[in-house]
C-alpha cells in the first residue's frame, strides 16, 4: 500500500467516514439481495398481482413493474445491482408500489420529521430525568429513596416499551377513560390544516403526549441506573476527595467535578440511542398510529411495498451509523484524554 493511502487511513475523520460508507454499502447490498433472492421474488409477485387485479397482460404488467422498480429485470444480477447502487448514489430510492407513483424518498421526507420530533423530544426528556435521578440516587446510595428507585428503574427498563404502550391505551384511553382515545392515536387531527397555527401546534403536542410518556417511562430507568453507577464510581475517585480537601464549594464539586466526569460516558450512549430509537419506533408508532418512519416501515412490510421497505430500512441504518460516528467525534471533543488523530 502506498504511503499516501496509509497516511489517509491514519486520519481520524477519514476513517470515520470510511466506516459510515462501508456500513451503508453493506446494508444496501444486503437489502438488495434479500429482496432479489427471496423465495417468491417480489417483482414477480407484483407482476402477478397487477395481472390479477388490473387485468393487465403479462407484458404490460412487466413493463409497469420495471418502471416501478427502475431496474432492468432482464439484465444479469450484477448489472441490476450496479444500476441499483448508482440510483442510490443519486438519492433515487425507487417508487412506492402501494401509493402508486410516489417516490420513496418523498414519502420518507414526509414521515421522517414526525419521528424526529417525537423521538428527540422524548430522548432528551428521559435523559434529563434519568441523569438527575441517577445523581440523586448515587448521593443517597443505600437509603430508602435509592433502594426504591433502583428497584423501579430496574423493572421499568426490563418491561418492553410496547407493553407500556398497550397498557397506556387500555387503561388511560379505554378502561379509565382519562384521555380521548382519538387524540392518543394519530399524529394530528385530520380536520385541522397543518401549518404554523397555535391550534395545530397544540394539537400536535396533544397527540405526541402519550407516545412521549411511553418512551420516557421505558427509558429513563436505564439512564438513571447508568448515571447512578457512573456517579458512584466518580465519587470514589481520589480527585473528589482532593476537591473536598481543597474546600471547594459543594455546588462546584457536584457539578464540575462529579457531574461532568460521570455524565461524560453517557453522552456517547445518548448520541447512539438517538440513532437506534428510529428502529425502536416501529412498535410504539404502530400502537399509537403515529405516522412516523416506523409506522411507514410497518405498513410497507404489511403491504409488501418493497421499494419503500428498502428505502426506510436504509434510512434507519444510516441514522444509526451516523449517530455512532457523531458520538465518536463528539467524545473526542468533550474528553480531553481522547486525542483526535492518534
Amino acid at each position, binding site marked *: 500500500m502506498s504511503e499516501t493511502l496509509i497516511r489517509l487511513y491514519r486520519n481520524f475523520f477519514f476513517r470515520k467516514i470510511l466506516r459510515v460508507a462501508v456500513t451503508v454499502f*453493506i446494508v444496501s447490498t444486503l437489502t438488495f439481495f434479500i429482496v432479489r433472492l427471496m423465495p417468491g421474488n417480489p417483482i414477480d409477485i407484483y407482476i402477478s398481482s397487477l395481472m390479477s387485479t388490473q387485468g393487465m397482460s403479462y407484458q404490460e404488467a412487466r413493463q409497469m413493474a420495471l418502471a416501478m422498480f427502475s431496474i432492468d429485470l432482464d439484465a444479469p444480477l450484477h448489472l441490476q445491482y450496479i444500476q441499483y447502487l448508482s440510483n442510490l448514489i443519486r438519492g433515487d430510492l425507487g417508487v412506492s408500489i402501494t401509493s402508486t407513483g410516489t417516490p420513496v424518498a418523498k414519502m420518507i421526507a414526509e414521515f421522517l420529521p414526525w419521528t424526529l420530533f417525537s423521538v428527540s423530544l422524548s430522548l432528551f426528556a428521559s435523559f434529563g430525568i434519568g441523569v438527575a435521578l441517577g445523581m440523586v440516587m448515587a448521593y443517597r446510595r443505600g437509603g430508602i429513596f435509592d433502594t426504591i428507585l433502583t428497584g423501579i428503574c430496574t423493572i421499568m427498563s426490563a418491561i*418492553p416499551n410496547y407493553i407500556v404502550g398497550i397498557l397506556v*391505551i*387500555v387503561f388511560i384511553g379505554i*378502561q379509565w377513560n382519562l384521555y380521548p382515545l382519538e387524540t392518543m392515536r394519530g399524529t394530528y387531527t385530520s380536520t385541522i390544516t397543518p401549518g404554523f397555527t397555535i391550534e395545530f401546534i397544540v394539537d400536535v403536542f396533544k397527540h405526541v403526549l402519550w407516545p412521549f410518556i411511553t418512551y420516557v417511562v421505558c427509558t429513563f430507568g436505564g439512564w438513571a441506573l447508568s448515571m447512578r453507577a457512573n456517579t458512584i464510581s466518580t465519587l470514589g475517585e481520589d480527585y473528589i476527595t482532593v476537591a473536598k480537601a481543597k474546600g471547594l464549594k459543594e455546588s462546584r464539586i457536584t457539578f464540575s467535578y462529579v457531574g461532568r466526569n460521570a455524565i461524560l460516558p453517557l453522552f456517547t450512549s445518548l448520541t447512539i440511542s438517538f440513532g437506534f430509537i428510529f428502529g425502536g419506533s416501529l412498535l410504539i408508532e404502530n400502537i399509537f398510529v403515529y405516522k412516523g418512519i416506523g409506522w411507514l*416501515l410497518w405498513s410497507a412490510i404489511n403491504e409488501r411495498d418493497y421499494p419503500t421497505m428498502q428505502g426506510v430500512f436504509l434510512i434507519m441504518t444510516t*441514522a444509526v451509523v451516523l449517530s455512532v460516528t457523531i458520538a465518536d467525534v463528539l467524545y473526542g471533543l468533550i474528553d480531553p484524554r481522547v486525542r483526535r488523530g492518534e
Partner: protein
Amino acid sequence: MTKEKYLVKWRGTASKTIGLLKTIYASKHGTVGFLILLIYLFMAFFGSSIRPLDTTPKPGQMYLPPSIKYPLGTDNQGRDTLSFIVNGTFDVLYISLVASMVSVILAVLVGSVSGFKGGTVDSILMYISDIILNIPQFPLMAVLSGLMRLTDVSLAMLMGVLSWPSLAKAIRSQVLSLKERDFIEAARLLDLGTRHIVFTELMPNLMPYIAVSFALAMTYSIYNYVGLVFLGFVPFRAYNWGVMINHAWVLGAIYNRDSILWILSPIIAIVGLEVGVIMFSRGLELAFNPRLRK
C-alpha cells in the same frame, strides 16, 4: 473409576451445586428470580398436562370474570385464558433460550478469540461486530420475518445471530483485562495447557459476565419475539402470549371493558418473566464470584 472415588467426586459436584443454590438463596433478588423462573419452567413442561389447551369456543361464556373454574376468566370466544397462558409459556421460553444461547455462544467465541489473538484477527472481528451493531436489529428482523415466513427455530437463530456483537465486545474487554493478569502468565509458565487455562483459570472469572449477558440476551429476545408476533410478522400459533395480545388488539377486544383480564394476563406473564430473568441474573452474578460471598 472406583466406586469410592466416584462417590467423592459426586459429592463434590453435589455440594458445589448446593453451594451455588445457597449463594443464590442468600441474595434476595436471586431467590425471588429463581422462584419466578421455577414457576415458568413448571408451566412450560407440565402446563399442558395439568391445564390442557381449551380450544372449543363457548359463545355464551365471553369475557367471564375470574372464578374457580376459570381463574383468569375467559377470552373473546369464551375459552379458558389460563390454559392459553400456561400453554404459551413453552414457546416464549424455548425461542428466547435458543436465541440467547446462540447469541451468548457466538459472543463468547468471538469475544475471547478477539481478546486473546489480538492484532489483525481482533481488528477484523471487531470491525464486523461494529457493522452488525450499526444495523437496527428490530427493523431488520421485522423486514426479514415479514418477508420470509420464518420458522420458530430459524427466527430464534436469526435473533441470536444479530444480537451477539455488544456482548462480544463486553466479553472481549473482560478477556483483555484478564489476559494481562499475572495468574494467566503463571499458568502458561507452569505449562498447565490451554484447556486448563481456558476452563479453570479464565472461565470462572468470565462466568459472572456470561451469566449477566445471558440474562440480558434473554430479555432482549423475549422483547423481540413477542414484539414481532404482536406486529403479526411471525407465523401464528394459536396459543402464544404475543398472539393473545395481537388478537385482543386487532380484533378490537381492547375496546370492550370486560376484556381487561384477557389482555392483562399475557402482559403480566411477559413482564413477570422479564423481571424474573433479571433478578435471577443478579443472584447468579453473586454466586459466581467468591469475592462477593461471605
